[in-house]
């Protein structure tokens, strides 16, 4: 019910020729002021009209929300994703359980609040399902269990036209790809971004933006956009008073990046963003791949691939005795119906001082059970016939029979990793060339990472020098990616397709940070990521993504690379994801 004042306002509006469009309290104030100025309403009548409208507004949902006076703008938004995912992995060192297949139904819910506190200060919060830092996915399981929600962002910051400082758990400010940083990770710490092109000195507008909505646009005449980004992230927390030296310093990540974009026109640009990322040496807990990144005690390389064959298959193995002299053993493990006939190493079998190059040993056996010939094949990437460093070890061999594979490997105790073990020093150089093809936004993009400390990591952290299958190679410290994207899914009817290829050396990047969907974050992998997406509406998008990865170096095993909790455990890793997303 409207009061006489509201009716009076309606009459006044009619008198001045306004349409009968519905009025709301929040937008009627200026109109009431005008009517007062024109003498149509008195101040008191105007105030009572406002009170009437406020009363109507207060009965709406929006009117019941009470915001702090300090809030000048509040944006609430989020998204919900339903996903079916299928994963198929095969272990680097096969054993009886080397192939794993799994499908899951999952969802991810994210709720965001972006808060402006005047023109300069801001804060933000994000809540999401999933506790791990690189995934908000929650699997439907547990007999209708209810699920937890976690704080994935909590930050505050200050900004002017050209400087932005943010503290807390926040969105990753760096220009990057998922080769180095998983896009789901919200790093915690302090970040700074200096936008040189927005400085008055370089043609920017200068001065505070004043509208509380962020920094001002750069001058359109300047084709360059150049920014310097710094991040100091707290990767963990240890007790600084701990007696053990390796436990009394916190793990940190520091990264600095220069991002330069040159715009040829509004659709075409080139961006390059060299960066340096450093992680200090400290004890690490909590992350999935913490074992090879922390000060850890001695571990077993694992018992899943011990040279104990129990299946009904034939086995071939080369063992090194204490002097490093190899001897071969052919073992029919089943009934007498299987008979070994030959075994022929293609190179020197023993006694030679040096033997270079790969050695292959083949053996054939016949079996009355399948009525045919069974071929047993073993291979070794490198080695010498007499090699004391291989004393008491056995190299991997395989025997194929009736589609069964059995392998053997050594089971050793890996020494503790202490001291300056975690330190990483990675140079990265992502970039893109953006343009339009037939009206569709497209880009050719790339990334490159080189770990300056890669050799140390290979030799002493992953312990591949003493317990691995081969020595360090330069490509172990390198990761790279190149891809192409056509289209984007911003509004109804949009579609996108992309394909990228990457290679990730075992000592190149941090598997705690890289994309967990690409080969489950595993290193020493290469492969493709292929995706397509379509926007059914402005806010509903469907996606299909495939990941096909295989070993960068199949012969690389041993040490902490393929041990329990290793960082290169896979021979192959394939994943399919089907997503249904809704944004609100």
């Amino acid at each position, binding site marked *: 019910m409207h009061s006489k004042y509201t009716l009076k306002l309606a009459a006044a509006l009619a008198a001045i020729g306004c349409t009968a469009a519905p009025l709301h*309290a929040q937008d009627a104030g200026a109109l009431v*002021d005008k009517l*007062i*100025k024109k003498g149509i309403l008195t*101040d*008191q009548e105007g*105030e*009572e009209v*406002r*009170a009437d409208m*406020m*009363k109507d*507004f*207060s*009965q709406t949902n*929006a*009117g*019941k*929300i*009470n915001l702090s*006076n*300090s809030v*000048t703008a509040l944006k609430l938004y989020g998204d919900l994703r339903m996903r079916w995912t299928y994963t198929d992995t095969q272990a680097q060192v096969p054993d009886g359980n080397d192939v794993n297949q799994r499908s899951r139904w999952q969802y991810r819910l994210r709720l965001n609040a972006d808060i402006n506190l*005047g*023109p*300069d200060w801001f804060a933000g919060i994000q809540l999401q399902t999933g506790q791990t830092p690189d995934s908000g996915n929650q699997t439907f399981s547990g007999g209708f269990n209810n699920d937890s929600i976690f704080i994935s962002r909590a930050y505050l910051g200050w900004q002017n036209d050209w400087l932005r400082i943010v503290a807390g758990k926040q969105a990753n400010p760096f220009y990057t790809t998922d080769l180095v940083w998983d896009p789901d990770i919200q790093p915690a710490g302090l970040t700074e971004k200096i936008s040189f092109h927005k400085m008055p000195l370089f043609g920017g507008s200068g*001065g*505070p933006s*004043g509208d*509380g909505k962020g920094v001002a646009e750069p001058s359109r005449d300047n084709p360059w956009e150049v920014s310097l980004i710094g991040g100091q992230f707290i990767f963990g927390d240890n007790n600084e008073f701990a007696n053990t030296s390796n436990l009394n310093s916190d793990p940190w990540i520091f990264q600095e990046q220069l991002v330069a974009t040159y715009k040829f026109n509004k659709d075409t640009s080139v961006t390059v963003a060299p960066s340096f990322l450093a992680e200090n040496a400290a004890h690490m807990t909590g992350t999935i791949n913490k074992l090879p990144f922390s000060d850890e005690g001695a571990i077993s390389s694992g018992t899943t691939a011990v040279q104990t064959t129990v299946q009904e298959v034939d086995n071939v193995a080369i063992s090194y005795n204490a002097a490093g002299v190899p001897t071969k053993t052919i073992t029919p493990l089943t009934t007498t119906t299987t008979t070994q006939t030959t075994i022929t190493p293609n190179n020197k079998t023993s006694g030679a001082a040096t033997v270079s190059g790969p050695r292959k040993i083949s053996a054939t056996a016949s079996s009355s059970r399948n009525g045919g010939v069974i071929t047993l094949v073993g291979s070794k990437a490198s080695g010498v016939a007499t090699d004391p460093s291989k004393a008491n070890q056995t190299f991997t061999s395989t025997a194929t029979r009736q589609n069964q594979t059995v392998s053997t490997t050594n089971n050793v105790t890996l020494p503790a990793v202490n001291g300056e073990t975690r330190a990483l020093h990675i140079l990265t150089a992502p970039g893109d060339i953006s343009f339009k093809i037939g009206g569709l936004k497209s880009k050719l993009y790339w990334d490159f990472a080189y770990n300056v400390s890669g050799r140390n990591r290979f030799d002493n952290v992953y312990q591949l020098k003493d317990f691995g299958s081969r020595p360090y190679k330069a490509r172990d410290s390198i990761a790279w990616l190149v891809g192409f994207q056509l289209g984007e899914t911003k509004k109804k009817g949009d579609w996108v397709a992309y394909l990228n290829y990457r290679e990730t050396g075992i000592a190149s990047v941090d598997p705690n940070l890289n994309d967990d969907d690409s080969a489950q974050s595993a290193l020493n992998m290469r492969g493709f990521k292929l995706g397509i997406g379509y926007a059914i509406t402005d806010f509903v998008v469907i996606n299909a993504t495939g990941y096909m990865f295989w070993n960068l170096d199949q012969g690389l095993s041993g040490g902490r690379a393929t041990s329990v909790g290793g960082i290169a455990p896979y021979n192959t890793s394939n994943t399919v994801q089907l997503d249904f997303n809704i944004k609100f």
Partner: protein
Amino acid sequence: MKLNPFITATALLPLMATLAHAGKVVIKGSDTLGAKLVPQLAEAFKAQSPGTSFEIAAEGSTTGIAALIDGTANIGMSSRRTKPTEVSEAGAKGLTLKPTIVAFDGIAIIVNSANPVKELTKKQVEQIFTGDITDWSALGGMAGKISIYTRNTSSGTFSDFKELAMKKRDYAKSSQKLAGNEQIAAEVGKNPSGIGYVGLAYIKASGVKALPVDNVAPSQASIRAHNYAFWRPTFYYTAGEPSGDAKAFLDFTIGPKGQAIVNSVGFVPIK
């Protein structure tokens, strides 16, 4: 839960009866109004109606409106309009918050009489008090660091000025906070580089001059006509139509005698 207005009114009856007891008017809210104006109005009213007593608590507009909704005040003094949530809360209790404008208020920007600057824009006022502009030379004055004088943080005007003139931004770190209008006028009068804000009643203090903002000088006429940038209405809020001693006091406030006191205290009368 939807409240039955009859049951609500019945439940509030004892409280209302207490408030109405012995001609006592309970007024809570804005310190802008409650510091000086309303006590003087109450004294004048008591002189006219000796049977009436007053309880005045000036602890901020929010407390006045809350007290009105709780039924612990007859009148809520406020230097701002109600918020939707306050109106909603009152509605849930079957109450309607009725505003009555009792006076207009204006905040004048003063500088030292010797300062050559003759006027400012709203944007410049914001930039000065937030510290974006720190030297008079940027405003056409003599070179010299600007000395900013403001009310202290407990003052309602301190926050009102932020809202009216500074887009709610923070004051410059260099600003000096003083207790009242007199102190600000005195400091600006002594300091050729000083700037501050005062109520309309203080613009004729010795050694200062009030600057026009966006070409409009602060005056009773410009504030009443709402032409001056930094003006605001001030209110008595009541729960529905006022009655009894509260109505009598409200009528007194907006009547000729009350408005004369409004004028004498430094506010702008509504008529």
